[in-house]
Each structure stands twice: as C-alpha cells, then as structure tokens.
C-alpha cells in the first residue's frame, strides 16, 4: 500500500504532464491530476480537487494489488502550483469528511512531485513523502548542505554519534529510486544524517552527489536513531538497493 499523490495545477495539461512524468518513475503509486477548471479553462476547481483527493485516498487505502497491506503507508500528499491552487487545495481540506492523512506539500511542482512519487514508490509514509517533496525545494542544483551546520550549537557541529563508509555496488549507483529509499527511510527516523555532506533525508540532495557504482558513501549520523540510520543506509547500499 503506497501513499497516493494529487497534483493541483492551473493548467490541465501541466497537471497531466507532471503526472505522466512522475508515473514513469513510480509505476505503483496512484498519482492523479486535478488541473484547470471544470470547463477546461485555466484555473483551479474545488470539485476537481476534491474528487481527485477522494479518489486517490480511496484507492490508496482500498485496493492495493501486489503490496503488503497494513504497513501504515497510506495517506495522500497534495502538490500545487501557483497561489490560488494552494488556496483551492486548502479549501478542499476544509470540505473533506476526513482530512486526516491528507497533507499539502509546499514544494516546487515538478521536482517535488518526482521526489514524492519516488519516495511513495519506495514505501515511505505520508509524512516522509511530503518531506521528500519539500526537500526538493531550491532545485536539484542546490543540495541542502545541512544548513543547520551554520547554526551555532546545532548537533551537526558536534562529532557524529555514528559514522560508517559504504561502497555503492549496484550498477546504476545513487539514482532516483535508491535516493528516494534512503531519504524516505531516514526521514522517518529521529536522526540527522549526512551522506558525503548532503542531507540524507533529501532525495534531491542525494541525487546531486552523482554517486555511481564504486563510490564510497561516508555516512554521519546524530541523534537518538543515529545507529539505526547508519545501519539502514548500510543495509540498502550493501544490498545494491535490490538492483543488479
């Protein structure tokens, strides 16, 4: 059972195109477009958005062929484009019978959607999917170099609680899906993790490493779950992310 995603855009074409793009990377995730007005103009429609959210959350919690149920991985993340799309999505939540489990992501539409879709494909929970989307802010060219390092007294300025090095063994290296698995898993742990200096919970950050097969990942972790975080990354990397 994966988290579902709804894409709200002023343009029907943008919504559909973004969904098409993301679906390529996340074939098992329910991603529904809600673009344009009821009569096909530029704008947003509460009815369209409500219908998409209801359908997405229904599908996500109902039929989920080929996936283990009960993983707690349900819910819906809503991505939006310009200002009034945000307002329409917020209004939709106000109208929903059960808005619990439906989260709005404050993220760039395309980058955020791809990050969210891949995170959902990797089985991340609804909070982690939203975080993956929001982590895409600022574009792929600007990884988040643990911005907190600049803050005095932040945990990152202290020595890491756990650290380890792992060599990428899968052919494709740290591409989108592995990055989403790593980021999605780390997002749900109580730990701050950097991998070769980028935020381990940021899918786009990890992708900007451009780490191919044979690259050694230096993992540093702080916090309560630091050890689990390092083990989690190590387990994934050593298993080649389940890829050849």
């Amino acid at each position, binding site marked *: 059972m994966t988290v579902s995603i709804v894409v709200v855009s002023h343009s029907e074409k943008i919504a559909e195109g973004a969904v098409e793009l993301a679906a390529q990377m996340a074939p098992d995730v329910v991603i529904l477009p809600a673009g344009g*007005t*009821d009569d096909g*103009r*530029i*704008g*947003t*429609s*509460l*009815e*369209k958005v409500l219908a998409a959210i209801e359908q997405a959350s229904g599908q996500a919690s109902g039929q989920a062929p080929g996936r283990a149920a009960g993983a707690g991985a349900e819910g819906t993340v809503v991505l939006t484009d310009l*200002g*009034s799309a945000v*307002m*329409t999505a*917020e*209004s939709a939540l*106000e*109208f929903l019978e059960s808005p619990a489990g439906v989260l709005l992501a404050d993220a760039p539409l395309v980058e955020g959607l791809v990050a969210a879709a891949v995170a959902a494909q990797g089985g991340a929970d609804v909070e982690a999917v939203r975080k993956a989307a929001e982590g895409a802010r600022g574009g792929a060219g600007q990884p988040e170099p643990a911005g907190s390092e600049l803050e005095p007294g932040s945990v990152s300025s202290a020595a890491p609680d756990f650290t380890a090095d792992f060599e990428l063994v899968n052919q494709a290296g740290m591409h989108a899906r592995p990055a989403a698995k790593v980021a999605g898993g780390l997002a749900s742990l109580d730990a701050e993790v950097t991998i070769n200096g980028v935020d381990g919970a940021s899918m786009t950050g990890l992708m900007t490493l451009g780490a191919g097969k044979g690259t050694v990942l230096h993992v540093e972790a702080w916090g309560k779950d630091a050890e689990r975080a390092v083990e989690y990354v190590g387990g994934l990397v050593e298993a080649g992310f389940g890829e050849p």
Partner: protein
Amino acid sequence: MVLDANWAVKWLTLCAQAMAEHRVELIELDRAIGDSDHGENMDRGFQAVLAKLGESTPETPGAALKMTAMTLMSKVGGAAGPLYGTAFLRAATALGDSAEIDPAAWAAALAAARDGIVARGKAEPGDKTMVDAWTPAVDAARAAADGGSTDVLGVLVAAAEAAEAGAVSTDPMVARKGRASYLGERSAGHRDPGAVSSALILRAAVGAAA
C-alpha cells in the same frame, strides 16, 4: 424585515445581478492591475450559484451560503474562487442552522468571512485587497449591532457603506498581495477589483432586505 432563507436567496440572486451588471467594470479594474479576469470569473461564479438556486431551495441562510461557497470555489477559477468560497463557507458555519439572522449574528458571520479570507489569502489591511473592504465592514457591522440592536437593515447598511468606503480607500494603496503586487508602485491609483466586488456583495445584502 427578517433575514431568513428567502432573504438569503434574494441576496444571492442580487449578487448575481450585480456581478453581471458590473462585469465590464470589474474587468477594466482588473486589467489595470491584474489579469482582467475578475469580472468574467465573478459573473460566471454567481450565474452558477443562480443555477443551483433554481435546482433546490435552501432551508436556512447557512445552507444557502454553504452551497454558494462550494459553487464559487468550483466555478470561479481565479484566486477569488477559494477566497469568496472560504468567506461564504465560514459565514455559513458561523450562522449554523439558525432560521433567521439577527444583527449580532450578521456581524459575527461577516467577521468569520473576513477571518476566512485573511486565513486563506494571508493579506492584511492596507495590502490593497478585498480585506480592505471586509475589515471596515466587520467593524461597522459590529458597531451597529452593539448593545443588542434589533435593526437588521441598519446593520446591513452600515456594513455595505463601510465596504464601499473601504474599496475607495484602496485607490492610493500599493498592492502587497496578489497579482497586482507584481506592479509595485504602479498599482497605486487603481481601485482593487476584489474590494469592489466585495462591496457589491454587501450592497446586494441591503437590496435583498429593502
């Protein structure tokens, strides 16, 4: 005069009339500082409300306003859709199942509507938005309803006049929210279309009670 479901239906009908009559004016205002779709959008939205009223008759003012909220959010398209939709929805919630609206309830409904617009659009008074019509309207309605006044028409008139003055007050303002904010200083000297349509809506409420 009682403000009941019949009044609410008449109010919404007059809103639709006002938007149709002022469609071009709103388009012109929006062309100066926005994307010139406000008149078109408001007209379309309230025509859809009119069509809904033709399908079924709401039993309470609250039910009429909730239907309006849903319709405007679905049909308007621009930012005005969710803003007015939220305004009508919050007002409907404030009115609850009451069959009639007294002055205090009208003031409370306007306040809820204004708070909804602020929550949704994040605009403040002085930003050259519809908030500049709604906020004085809320203050005037509260003042008129103060002390348990039973003069409903007086409260409606007070709110409408304050909203109209509020709309005029946006003329010299520099927009800080919405599409007009992209124009910066050049937005001064134009009246905010959202403030004007807000005043039209509150004026229609008077007409329905007259």
